């Protein structure tokens, strides 16, 4: 065969192979979405969303307590993780051009890549074992907060770094104290990126399972007290996924549908509504690169 034709053919084969890889990787995504929607949708009803999981698979059971549990866990985790992550990000970006800042950033990045089950063990060691809270909503929220902190602080840092230095200089030249510059000029200008990071981290922790298994455990009752075990959507799926009872399995698929709706709507919403301006898009890209996408 002619060498040019051979090279052209090789080129085309390679392009085709690369495209095939993309298609092959997208099959699971589409398959998962279709399957979760198709199998989960029949379970959804008002009663399903508002009654608790008894665990017997009888009529009138639902995942209301798991939805409430997931909301509470995410709420308390955000309450703890958001301020800490935000302040760490501000420090690293605005005051962090020194050894302390570099060290902090380094350990923060490593924390972001801990396997989530290890974070569950850390929260267990602190809250369940040391503080003697036992398996509880509080322990689960601490675990999720630890996952949230590096994500929020990395996004905050990236977002604040996007704010041009001329704004800092301008504010300081007007005699504005530096702390006021940070809060009223820099943070305000970088808020799109910060909000993006917070929302994505919420989507991330809403789907975490392993750390909750180790800390919040599970409850089939309506529990909202900080000191008691609590149900959550991911754990409802895990408990029921292998159940011989059709009703319980159906519960798992229903919970999966609700969970995937929450997670994907946040991800897509952030992309559509906050990702339009190039700076913010870059923020998302940068932190995903740094966190190696451990979403």
């Amino acid at each position, binding site marked *: 065969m002619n060498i040019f034709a051979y090279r052209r053919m090789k*080129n085309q084969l390679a*392009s085709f192979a690369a495209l095939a890889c*993309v298609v092959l990787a997208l099959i*699971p995504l589409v398959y998962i979405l279709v399957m979760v929607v198709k199998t989960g949708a029949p379970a959804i009803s008002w009663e399903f969303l508002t009654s608790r999981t008894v665990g017997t698979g009888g009529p009138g059971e639902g995942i209301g307590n798991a939805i409430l549990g997931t909301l509470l866990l995410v709420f308390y985790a955000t309450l703890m993780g958001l301020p800490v992550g935000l302040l760490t990000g501000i420090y690293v970006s605005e005051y962090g051009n020194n050894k302390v800042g570099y060290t*902090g950033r380094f350990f923060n990045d*490593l924390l972001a890549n801990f396997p989530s089950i290890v974070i569950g063990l850390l929260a267990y060691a602190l809250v369940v074992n040391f503080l003697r809270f036992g398996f509880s909503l509080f322990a689960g929220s601490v675990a999720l907060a630890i996952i949230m902190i590096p994500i929020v602080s990395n996004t905050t840092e990236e977002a604040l770094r996007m*704010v041009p230095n001329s704004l800092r200089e301008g504010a300081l030249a007007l005699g504005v104290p*530096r702390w006021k510059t940070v809060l009223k000029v820099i943070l305000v200008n970088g808020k799109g990126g910060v909000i993006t990071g917070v929302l994505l981290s919420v989507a991330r922790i809403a789907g*975490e399972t392993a750390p909750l298994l180790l800390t919040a455990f599970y409850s089939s009752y309506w529990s909202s007290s900080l000191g008691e075990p609590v149900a959550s959507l991911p754990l409802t799926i895990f408990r029921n996924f292998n159940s011989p009872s059709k009703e319980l399995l159906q519960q798992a698929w229903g919970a999966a549908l609700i969970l995937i709706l929450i997670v994907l709507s946040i991800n897509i919403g952030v992309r559509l509504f906050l990702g339009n301006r190039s700076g913010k898009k870059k923020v998302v890209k940068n932190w995903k690169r740094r966190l190696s996408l451990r979403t």
Partner: protein
Amino acid sequence: MFSWRSSGADKFFEYGVMAIGLSTLVLVWGLVLMMVNDASPSIDRFGLGFFIGMQWNPNTEIFGALPFIFGTLLTSGIAILIGVPLSIGIAVYLSELAPPWVRQPLSFVVELLAAVPSVIYGLWAMYALRPFIAQSVEPFFMSFLGWTPLFQGNAVGLDKFTAGVILAIMIIPTIASVSKETMRAVPDSQREAALSLGATRYETTRIAVLSYARSGIFGACILGLGRALGETMAVTMTIGNANSISWSLLDPGQTMSSLIANNWGEAQGLQLSALIEIGLVLFIVALIVNLFARLMVGRIMRAVPATGGGL
């Protein structure tokens, strides 16, 4: 000139921010020591023998980690073997071949793969991937690799093979997007030089892009490995949970993380501390892998965002 008051407030703000942010970080890392403390009964009892122990028996209180280390390495190995070629293909397509208008949306869709919670991967794997693998993929491999120790037994689907495949799917977005970023970081002059010498697109990618970015791509694979080693739920749901060592991919197994997830509820005393020790091993392995990956990716991606940052 700053007045005394405003510079005082500045110092207060700076140190306050530093104290809250960094003290939490110190606290979290300090928790690792607390984990060591929780694991100490098991560390004292088994010493280094823990790593070569073959048994996990709560009745006789003899615990060894070898089957789980083995399971973790084997499933992650399968994941890398399947995931890496696919991911590099995706990265090449997204960075070199795709028409500009599909790049952004397509990258986003690939990244969505990373947003799906792992418990949902597990659920899907149980009811869609497992039957497919048991009926088509495993018999296929058994038909021509059945003589090797890797494919002995029956094709059931609740085994290390399925766990490895689901892990491969889960690490694809990590490897693909980090590789893509490192390929994007290759200067265009490299590509132009190859093209001007008459190279085809494929040859350009191979000569100019892949070889230039190879340390970054290697780092991306190591990051993917790190994710596969620590992944818990999807593996727990598909690996079949057997505390024994078997080379056959068609036999059920157990990884370090799935062992923790499976036994957490009922573990007490020495077993609990042995589980925490397993978690500690997992932590150390993940830490080493990540430090290594950081080194490799950092070599090509030195670029820290240029604008802004503290004055």
